[in-house]
Protein backbone atom coordinates (compact mmCIF):
# COMPACT_ATOMS: atom_id res chain seq x y z
CA UNK A 1 0.00 0.00 0.00
CA UNK A 2 1.51 3.33 -1.07
CA UNK A 3 1.52 6.34 1.25
CA UNK A 4 -1.06 8.07 -0.91
CA UNK A 5 -3.32 5.05 -0.81
CA UNK A 6 -2.95 4.90 2.98
CA UNK A 7 -4.04 8.55 3.22
CA UNK A 8 -7.01 8.03 0.91
CA UNK A 9 -8.17 4.91 2.75
CA UNK A 10 -7.93 6.59 6.14
CA UNK A 11 -9.92 9.65 5.09
CA UNK A 12 -12.58 7.47 3.46
CA UNK A 13 -13.31 6.10 6.96
CA UNK A 14 -14.34 9.59 8.07
CA UNK A 15 -17.28 9.73 5.67
CA UNK A 16 -20.70 9.35 7.26
CA UNK A 17 -23.78 8.17 5.43
CA UNK A 18 -25.46 11.10 3.72
CA UNK A 19 -22.37 13.29 3.53
CA UNK A 20 -21.92 15.83 0.75
CA UNK A 21 -18.23 16.09 -0.07
CA UNK A 22 -15.99 18.00 -2.46
CA UNK A 23 -12.72 16.24 -3.31
CA UNK A 24 -9.81 18.24 -4.67
CA UNK A 25 -7.83 17.23 -7.70
CA UNK A 26 -5.09 14.59 -7.38
CA UNK A 27 -4.70 12.58 -4.17
CA UNK A 28 -8.10 13.58 -2.70
CA UNK A 29 -9.84 12.18 -5.78
CA UNK A 30 -8.47 8.72 -4.86
CA UNK A 31 -10.65 8.70 -1.73
CA UNK A 32 -13.79 8.08 -3.79
CA UNK A 33 -12.47 4.58 -4.47
CA UNK A 34 -12.39 3.55 -0.80
CA UNK A 35 -15.77 4.46 0.64
CA UNK A 36 -16.91 1.82 3.13
CA UNK A 37 -19.88 -0.31 2.16
CA UNK A 38 -23.26 1.00 3.34
CA UNK A 39 -22.02 4.57 3.35
CA UNK A 40 -23.75 6.77 0.77
CA UNK A 41 -21.74 9.90 -0.08
CA UNK A 42 -22.63 12.48 -2.73
CA UNK A 43 -19.65 14.10 -4.39
CA UNK A 44 -19.83 17.68 -5.60
CA UNK A 45 -17.77 19.11 -8.41
CA UNK A 46 -17.57 22.88 -8.20
CA UNK A 47 -18.06 23.38 -11.93
CA UNK A 48 -21.73 22.60 -11.26
CA UNK A 49 -22.60 19.02 -10.39
CA UNK A 50 -23.74 17.03 -7.38
CA UNK A 51 -23.71 13.23 -7.57
CA UNK A 52 -20.53 12.84 -9.61
CA UNK A 53 -19.77 9.27 -10.69
CA UNK A 54 -16.46 7.70 -11.71
CA UNK A 55 -14.71 8.08 -15.06
CA UNK A 56 -16.62 6.69 -18.04
CA UNK A 57 -15.54 3.26 -19.22
CA UNK A 58 -15.07 2.74 -22.92
CA UNK A 59 -14.81 5.42 -25.55
CA UNK A 60 -18.05 7.39 -25.24
CA UNK A 61 -16.97 10.35 -23.13
CA UNK A 62 -19.34 13.32 -23.10
CA UNK A 63 -17.58 16.69 -23.46
CA UNK A 64 -20.51 18.35 -21.64
CA UNK A 65 -19.94 16.16 -18.58
CA UNK A 66 -16.67 16.91 -16.83
CA UNK A 67 -15.43 17.46 -13.29
CA UNK A 68 -13.47 20.42 -11.94
CA UNK A 69 -10.27 18.69 -13.04
CA UNK A 70 -11.69 18.87 -16.58
CA UNK A 71 -11.83 15.10 -16.80
CA UNK A 72 -14.83 13.18 -18.14
CA UNK A 73 -17.08 11.77 -15.43
CA UNK A 74 -20.42 9.93 -15.23
CA UNK A 75 -23.80 10.65 -13.64
CA UNK A 76 -25.11 8.80 -10.59
CA UNK A 77 -28.90 8.44 -10.13
CA UNK A 78 -30.16 11.53 -8.32
CA UNK A 79 -27.37 13.76 -9.57
CA UNK A 80 -28.09 17.36 -10.47
CA UNK A 81 -26.51 20.14 -12.50
CA UNK A 82 -26.40 23.82 -11.63
CA UNK A 83 -24.61 27.02 -12.60
CA UNK A 84 -21.30 28.21 -11.14
CA UNK A 85 -22.84 30.89 -8.91
CA UNK A 86 -25.20 28.27 -7.48
CA UNK A 87 -22.37 25.83 -6.98
CA UNK A 88 -20.38 28.32 -4.95
CA UNK A 89 -23.45 29.55 -3.06
CA UNK A 90 -23.66 25.91 -1.96
CA UNK A 91 -19.98 25.84 -0.99
CA UNK A 92 -19.79 29.30 0.61
CA UNK A 93 -23.11 28.82 2.41
CA UNK A 94 -21.71 25.97 4.49
CA UNK A 95 -23.67 23.17 2.85
CA UNK A 96 -20.70 20.89 2.08
CA UNK A 97 -20.03 18.53 4.98
CA UNK A 98 -16.42 18.17 3.96
CA UNK A 99 -13.80 19.44 1.57
CA UNK A 100 -10.61 17.43 1.10
CA UNK A 101 -7.73 19.25 -0.56
CA UNK A 102 -4.08 18.80 -1.23
CA UNK A 103 -1.58 21.29 0.14
CA UNK A 104 1.93 22.56 -0.31
CA UNK A 105 2.10 23.87 3.27
CA UNK A 106 -0.05 23.90 6.40
CA UNK A 107 0.87 25.59 9.66
CA UNK A 108 0.15 25.64 13.41
CA UNK A 109 -2.68 28.16 12.92
CA UNK A 110 -4.50 26.01 10.39
CA UNK A 111 -3.33 28.27 7.58
CA UNK A 112 -3.14 26.59 4.20
CA UNK A 113 -1.00 27.32 1.14
CA UNK A 114 -1.74 25.32 -1.99
CA UNK A 115 -2.14 27.58 -4.97
CA UNK A 116 0.98 29.45 -5.95
CA UNK A 117 4.74 29.64 -5.67
CA UNK A 118 6.02 33.19 -6.19
CA UNK A 119 8.45 33.46 -9.07
CA UNK A 120 6.93 30.48 -10.77
CA UNK A 121 3.96 31.00 -13.07
CA UNK A 122 0.70 31.70 -11.28
CA UNK A 123 -1.95 29.29 -12.51
CA UNK A 124 -4.72 30.59 -10.29
CA UNK A 125 -6.57 29.46 -7.21
CA UNK A 126 -9.63 28.11 -9.02
CA UNK A 127 -12.20 27.18 -6.39
CA UNK A 128 -9.75 26.34 -3.59
CA UNK A 129 -10.15 29.59 -1.63
CA UNK A 130 -13.94 29.29 -1.75
CA UNK A 131 -13.84 25.66 -0.62
CA UNK A 132 -11.63 26.26 2.41
CA UNK A 133 -13.65 29.32 3.43
CA UNK A 134 -16.99 27.57 3.03
CA UNK A 135 -16.92 23.86 3.84
CA UNK A 136 -17.95 22.75 7.34
CA UNK A 137 -14.83 20.66 7.68
CA UNK A 138 -11.61 21.10 5.69
CA UNK A 139 -9.23 18.15 5.59
CA UNK A 140 -5.81 18.47 4.06
CA UNK A 141 -4.60 15.26 2.44
CA UNK A 142 -0.93 15.29 1.54
CA UNK A 143 2.36 13.47 1.80
CA UNK A 144 4.05 14.44 5.04
CA UNK A 145 7.23 15.81 3.49
CA UNK A 146 8.38 17.18 0.16
CA UNK A 147 10.41 15.05 -2.22
CA UNK A 148 13.49 16.71 -0.70
CA UNK A 149 12.44 15.65 2.79
CA UNK A 150 11.36 19.12 3.95
CA UNK A 151 8.43 19.39 6.31
CA UNK A 152 5.14 20.59 4.83
CA UNK A 153 3.70 21.13 8.28
CA UNK A 154 5.29 24.36 9.45
CA UNK A 155 5.23 26.82 12.30
CA UNK A 156 4.20 29.47 9.76
CA UNK A 157 3.42 29.01 6.07
CA UNK A 158 5.98 30.75 3.87
CA UNK A 159 3.99 30.57 0.63
CA UNK A 160 1.01 32.84 -0.15
CA UNK A 161 -2.05 31.57 1.71
CA UNK A 162 -5.14 29.95 0.27
CA UNK A 163 -6.95 30.51 3.54
CA UNK A 164 -6.31 31.74 7.04
CA UNK A 165 -7.19 29.42 9.96
CA UNK A 166 -9.27 27.21 7.72
CA UNK A 167 -7.85 23.69 8.15
CA UNK A 168 -9.53 21.33 10.62
CA UNK A 169 -7.44 18.21 10.09
CA UNK A 170 -4.23 17.17 8.37
CA UNK A 171 -3.84 13.61 7.16
CA UNK A 172 -0.55 12.27 5.87
CA UNK A 173 0.87 8.77 5.39
CA UNK A 174 2.43 9.14 8.84
CA UNK A 175 -0.30 10.55 11.01
CA UNK A 176 -3.57 12.32 11.68
CA UNK A 177 -3.25 15.83 13.10
CA UNK A 178 -6.18 17.79 14.46
CA UNK A 179 -5.91 21.59 14.32
CA UNK A 180 -7.05 23.27 17.56
CA UNK A 181 -6.83 26.83 18.90
CA UNK A 182 -4.00 25.53 21.16
CA UNK A 183 -2.06 24.16 18.21
CA UNK A 184 -1.63 20.93 16.26
CA UNK A 185 -2.73 17.84 18.17
CA UNK A 186 -1.33 14.48 17.03
CA UNK A 187 -4.18 12.01 17.40
CA UNK A 188 -3.07 9.03 15.29
CA UNK A 189 0.24 7.64 14.07
CA UNK A 190 0.83 5.04 11.38
CA UNK A 191 1.52 1.51 12.54
CA UNK A 192 5.15 1.04 13.56
CA UNK A 193 5.75 4.75 14.25
CA UNK A 194 5.68 6.73 17.46
CA UNK A 195 4.99 10.37 18.21
CA UNK A 196 8.65 11.27 18.48
CA UNK A 197 9.41 9.91 15.02
CA UNK A 198 6.54 11.93 13.53
CA UNK A 199 7.68 15.07 15.37
CA UNK A 200 11.20 14.56 14.03
CA UNK A 201 9.84 14.84 10.49
CA UNK A 202 7.65 17.85 11.29
CA UNK A 203 8.70 21.49 11.68
CA UNK A 204 5.54 22.52 13.56
CA UNK A 205 5.29 21.62 17.24
CA UNK A 206 2.92 18.68 17.72
CA UNK A 207 0.90 18.27 20.92
CA UNK A 208 0.54 14.55 21.54
CA UNK A 209 -3.02 13.61 22.33
CA UNK A 210 -3.46 11.65 25.58
CA UNK A 211 -5.59 9.34 23.45
CA UNK A 212 -3.02 8.81 20.70
CA UNK A 213 -4.03 5.82 18.55
CA UNK A 214 -2.65 3.81 15.70
CA UNK A 215 -4.01 5.04 12.36
CA UNK A 216 -6.26 2.31 10.97
CA UNK A 217 -6.92 2.26 7.28
CA UNK A 218 -9.81 0.45 5.65
CA UNK A 219 -8.93 -2.99 4.35
CA UNK A 220 -11.02 -3.09 1.19
Amino acid at each position, binding site marked *: MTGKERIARRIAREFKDGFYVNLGIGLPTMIAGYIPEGIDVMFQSENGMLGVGGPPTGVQTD*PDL*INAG*KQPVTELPGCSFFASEESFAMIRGGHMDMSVLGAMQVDEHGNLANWTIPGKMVKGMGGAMDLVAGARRVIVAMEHQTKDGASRILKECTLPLTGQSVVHDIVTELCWIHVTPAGLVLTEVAEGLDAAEVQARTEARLIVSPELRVMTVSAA
Partner: protein
Amino acid sequence: MNKVVSSADEAVADISSGSTVMLGGFGLCGIPENLIAALVRRRITGLHTISNNMGVDGFGMGLMLEAGMIASHVGSYVGENRRLETLVLKGELDLTLIPQGTLAERIRAGGAGIPAFYVPTGLGTVVAEGKETRKIGDRTYVLEQALHADVALIKAWKGDRLGNLVYRKTARNFNPAMATAADLTIAEVEELVEPGELDPDHIITPGIYVNRILVGATYRKPIESEFIKAGLTQSGGAA
Protein backbone atom coordinates in the same frame (compact mmCIF):
# COMPACT_ATOMS: atom_id res chain seq x y z
CA MET B 1 -39.76 39.47 -31.39
CA ASN B 2 -36.98 37.69 -33.23
CA LYS B 3 -33.41 37.76 -31.91
CA VAL B 4 -31.98 35.23 -34.34
CA VAL B 5 -28.93 36.27 -36.35
CA SER B 6 -27.76 34.15 -39.22
CA SER B 7 -24.09 33.76 -38.38
CA ALA B 8 -21.48 34.23 -35.69
CA ASP B 9 -19.79 36.83 -37.88
CA GLU B 10 -22.98 38.88 -38.06
CA ALA B 11 -23.48 38.47 -34.31
CA VAL B 12 -20.11 39.99 -33.39
CA ALA B 13 -19.85 42.51 -36.25
CA ASP B 14 -20.26 45.56 -33.99
CA ILE B 15 -18.03 44.55 -31.09
CA SER B 16 -15.24 47.07 -30.96
CA SER B 17 -11.62 47.01 -29.87
CA GLY B 18 -11.15 47.85 -26.23
CA SER B 19 -14.45 46.29 -25.14
CA THR B 20 -14.91 44.35 -21.91
CA VAL B 21 -16.07 40.88 -22.90
CA MET B 22 -17.32 38.03 -20.71
CA LEU B 23 -16.96 34.55 -22.15
CA GLY B 24 -18.85 31.57 -20.72
CA GLY B 25 -17.42 28.13 -20.14
CA PHE B 26 -15.35 26.12 -17.69
CA GLY B 27 -12.13 24.94 -19.28
CA LEU B 28 -13.21 24.02 -22.82
CA CYS B 29 -16.66 22.90 -21.63
CA GLY B 30 -19.59 25.10 -22.62
CA ILE B 31 -17.52 27.74 -24.40
CA PRO B 32 -18.91 29.81 -27.31
CA GLU B 33 -16.66 28.21 -29.93
CA ASN B 34 -18.28 29.82 -32.92
CA LEU B 35 -18.41 33.31 -31.46
CA ILE B 36 -14.75 33.07 -30.43
CA ALA B 37 -13.82 32.01 -33.96
CA ALA B 38 -15.79 34.96 -35.38
CA LEU B 39 -14.11 37.38 -32.97
CA VAL B 40 -10.71 36.06 -34.01
CA ARG B 41 -11.65 36.61 -37.66
CA ARG B 42 -12.48 40.24 -36.81
CA ARG B 43 -9.00 40.74 -35.34
CA ILE B 44 -10.09 43.46 -32.90
CA THR B 45 -7.62 44.20 -30.14
CA GLY B 46 -7.23 45.54 -26.62
CA LEU B 47 -10.06 43.40 -25.25
CA HIS B 48 -10.60 43.11 -21.53
CA THR B 49 -11.79 39.56 -21.01
CA ILE B 50 -13.58 38.01 -18.05
CA SER B 51 -13.76 34.23 -18.09
CA ASN B 52 -13.03 31.49 -15.58
CA ASN B 53 -10.20 30.11 -17.71
CA MET B 54 -8.30 31.15 -20.82
CA GLY B 55 -8.69 28.17 -23.11
CA VAL B 56 -5.61 26.17 -24.02
CA ASP B 57 -2.89 26.71 -26.56
CA GLY B 58 -4.69 26.05 -29.84
CA PHE B 59 -8.33 26.19 -28.73
CA GLY B 60 -10.96 28.39 -27.13
CA MET B 61 -9.73 31.71 -25.82
CA GLY B 62 -6.20 30.49 -26.50
CA LEU B 63 -6.91 31.46 -30.12
CA MET B 64 -7.74 35.03 -29.09
CA LEU B 65 -4.55 35.19 -27.10
CA GLU B 66 -2.50 33.91 -30.03
CA ALA B 67 -4.11 36.57 -32.23
CA GLY B 68 -2.95 39.26 -29.79
CA MET B 69 -6.46 40.43 -29.05
CA ILE B 70 -6.40 40.45 -25.25
CA ALA B 71 -5.06 43.35 -23.15
CA SER B 72 -6.25 42.18 -19.74
CA HIS B 73 -7.93 39.16 -18.24
CA VAL B 74 -9.90 38.43 -15.08
CA GLY B 75 -10.30 34.74 -14.23
CA SER B 76 -9.72 32.09 -11.59
CA TYR B 77 -7.46 29.58 -13.30
CA VAL B 78 -5.26 29.88 -16.37
CA GLY B 79 -2.94 26.91 -15.88
CA GLU B 80 -3.47 25.41 -19.30
CA ASN B 81 -2.00 28.17 -21.39
CA ARG B 82 1.73 28.63 -21.92
CA ARG B 83 1.36 31.61 -24.23
CA LEU B 84 -0.44 33.46 -21.46
CA GLU B 85 2.46 32.78 -19.12
CA THR B 86 4.88 34.36 -21.55
CA LEU B 87 2.70 37.43 -22.12
CA VAL B 88 2.15 37.99 -18.39
CA LEU B 89 5.83 37.61 -17.57
CA LYS B 90 6.71 40.06 -20.36
CA GLY B 91 4.15 42.51 -18.94
CA GLU B 92 2.11 42.51 -22.13
CA LEU B 93 -1.07 41.20 -20.51
CA ASP B 94 -2.58 42.32 -17.24
CA LEU B 95 -3.84 39.22 -15.39
CA THR B 96 -6.11 39.34 -12.33
CA LEU B 97 -6.77 36.04 -10.56
CA ILE B 98 -9.71 35.81 -8.19
CA PRO B 99 -11.41 32.89 -6.44
CA GLN B 100 -13.82 31.04 -8.69
CA GLY B 101 -16.82 31.44 -6.39
CA THR B 102 -16.15 35.12 -5.89
CA LEU B 103 -15.85 35.50 -9.67
CA ALA B 104 -19.20 33.78 -10.21
CA GLU B 105 -20.92 35.82 -7.50
CA ARG B 106 -19.44 39.11 -8.73
CA ILE B 107 -20.86 38.37 -12.17
CA ARG B 108 -24.25 37.43 -10.74
CA ALA B 109 -24.21 40.66 -8.71
CA GLY B 110 -23.45 42.61 -11.88
CA GLY B 111 -26.63 41.25 -13.42
CA ALA B 112 -28.74 41.56 -10.27
CA GLY B 113 -28.26 45.24 -9.43
CA ILE B 114 -26.08 44.50 -6.40
CA PRO B 115 -23.00 46.74 -6.58
CA ALA B 116 -21.07 45.06 -3.75
CA PHE B 117 -21.33 42.28 -1.16
CA TYR B 118 -19.33 40.60 1.56
CA VAL B 119 -17.73 37.13 1.38
CA PRO B 120 -15.51 35.11 3.71
CA THR B 121 -13.42 33.90 0.77
CA GLY B 122 -9.83 35.06 0.55
CA LEU B 123 -9.62 36.72 3.96
CA GLY B 124 -5.99 36.90 5.02
CA THR B 125 -4.74 36.16 1.49
CA VAL B 126 -3.52 38.32 -1.40
CA VAL B 127 -7.09 38.36 -2.69
CA ALA B 128 -8.12 40.61 0.21
CA GLU B 129 -5.22 43.02 -0.19
CA GLY B 130 -6.44 46.57 -0.68
CA LYS B 131 -10.04 45.53 -0.06
CA GLU B 132 -12.25 46.62 2.79
CA THR B 133 -12.84 43.99 5.46
CA ARG B 134 -15.58 44.02 8.05
CA LYS B 135 -16.62 42.00 11.05
CA ILE B 136 -20.24 40.87 10.77
CA GLY B 137 -21.40 38.60 13.57
CA ASP B 138 -18.35 36.65 14.73
CA ARG B 139 -16.54 36.43 11.42
CA THR B 140 -14.61 38.87 9.26
CA TYR B 141 -15.54 39.31 5.61
CA VAL B 142 -14.10 40.90 2.48
CA LEU B 143 -16.05 43.44 0.41
CA GLU B 144 -16.28 42.45 -3.25
CA GLN B 145 -17.62 44.51 -6.17
CA ALA B 146 -19.95 43.51 -9.00
CA LEU B 147 -18.55 42.77 -12.45
CA HIS B 148 -20.29 44.01 -15.58
CA ALA B 149 -19.27 43.81 -19.24
CA ASP B 150 -20.00 45.48 -22.53
CA VAL B 151 -20.59 42.11 -24.15
CA ALA B 152 -21.23 38.57 -22.96
CA LEU B 153 -20.60 35.70 -25.34
CA ILE B 154 -22.29 32.57 -24.08
CA LYS B 155 -23.06 29.02 -25.16
CA ALA B 156 -26.28 27.13 -24.47
CA TRP B 157 -27.66 23.83 -25.68
CA LYS B 158 -31.03 24.84 -27.09
CA GLY B 159 -32.76 28.18 -27.45
CA ASP B 160 -35.70 29.85 -29.15
CA ARG B 161 -36.00 33.09 -31.13
CA LEU B 162 -37.07 34.96 -27.96
CA GLY B 163 -33.69 34.12 -26.45
CA ASN B 164 -34.88 31.54 -23.92
CA LEU B 165 -32.05 29.09 -23.20
CA VAL B 166 -31.44 25.68 -21.66
CA TYR B 167 -28.04 24.17 -20.95
CA ARG B 168 -26.73 20.62 -20.94
CA LYS B 169 -24.99 19.03 -17.93
CA THR B 170 -21.79 20.75 -16.76
CA ALA B 171 -21.69 22.93 -19.87
CA ARG B 172 -23.95 25.32 -17.94
CA ASN B 173 -21.27 26.74 -15.58
CA PHE B 174 -20.70 30.51 -15.98
CA ASN B 175 -23.02 30.99 -18.95
CA PRO B 176 -26.29 31.86 -17.16
CA ALA B 177 -24.71 34.44 -14.84
CA MET B 178 -22.79 36.11 -17.68
CA ALA B 179 -25.99 36.30 -19.75
CA THR B 180 -27.34 38.71 -17.11
CA ALA B 181 -24.26 40.89 -16.65
CA ALA B 182 -23.55 42.60 -19.96
CA ASP B 183 -25.03 45.41 -22.03
CA LEU B 184 -25.12 43.07 -25.02
CA THR B 185 -25.57 39.32 -24.60
CA ILE B 186 -25.02 37.03 -27.56
CA ALA B 187 -25.86 33.35 -27.20
CA GLU B 188 -24.86 30.54 -29.51
CA VAL B 189 -26.82 27.29 -29.33
CA GLU B 190 -26.63 23.85 -30.85
CA GLU B 191 -30.29 23.81 -31.73
CA LEU B 192 -32.94 26.48 -32.31
CA VAL B 193 -36.48 25.46 -31.34
CA GLU B 194 -39.88 27.15 -31.60
CA PRO B 195 -41.11 29.32 -28.70
CA GLY B 196 -43.10 27.03 -26.42
CA GLU B 197 -41.02 23.93 -27.19
CA LEU B 198 -38.83 24.48 -24.14
CA ASP B 199 -40.84 23.68 -21.01
CA PRO B 200 -41.19 27.04 -19.21
CA ASP B 201 -40.30 25.31 -15.92
CA HIS B 202 -36.99 24.17 -17.43
CA ILE B 203 -35.77 27.42 -18.96
CA ILE B 204 -32.58 28.52 -17.19
CA THR B 205 -31.96 31.81 -18.97
CA PRO B 206 -35.17 33.70 -19.76
CA GLY B 207 -35.02 35.56 -23.06
CA ILE B 208 -34.99 38.96 -21.40
CA TYR B 209 -31.25 38.55 -20.88
CA VAL B 210 -30.40 37.65 -24.47
CA ASN B 211 -30.08 40.18 -27.29
CA ARG B 212 -28.94 37.93 -30.13
CA ILE B 213 -29.08 34.19 -30.68
CA LEU B 214 -27.49 32.04 -33.34
CA VAL B 215 -27.00 28.40 -34.15
CA GLY B 216 -23.31 27.50 -34.08
CA ALA B 217 -22.11 26.26 -37.47
CA THR B 218 -20.09 23.38 -36.02
CA TYR B 219 -19.10 22.15 -32.60
CA ARG B 220 -15.76 20.57 -31.95
CA LYS B 221 -16.12 20.33 -28.15
CA PRO B 222 -12.76 18.80 -27.25
CA ILE B 223 -12.35 17.37 -23.74
CA GLU B 224 -9.58 19.46 -22.23
CA SER B 225 -7.81 16.69 -20.33
CA GLU B 226 -7.69 14.58 -23.51
CA PHE B 227 -6.82 17.57 -25.72
CA ILE B 228 -3.85 18.23 -23.47
CA LYS B 229 -2.85 14.57 -23.24
CA ALA B 230 -2.84 14.50 -27.03
CA GLY B 231 0.25 16.68 -26.82
CA LEU B 232 -1.11 19.97 -28.06
CA THR B 233 -0.27 21.53 -24.72
CA GLN B 234 1.88 20.23 -21.93
CA SER B 235 1.01 21.92 -18.65
CA GLY B 236 -1.28 20.16 -16.20
CA GLY B 237 -3.08 21.39 -13.14
CA ALA B 238 -6.13 22.18 -11.15
CA ALA B 239 -9.42 23.86 -11.99
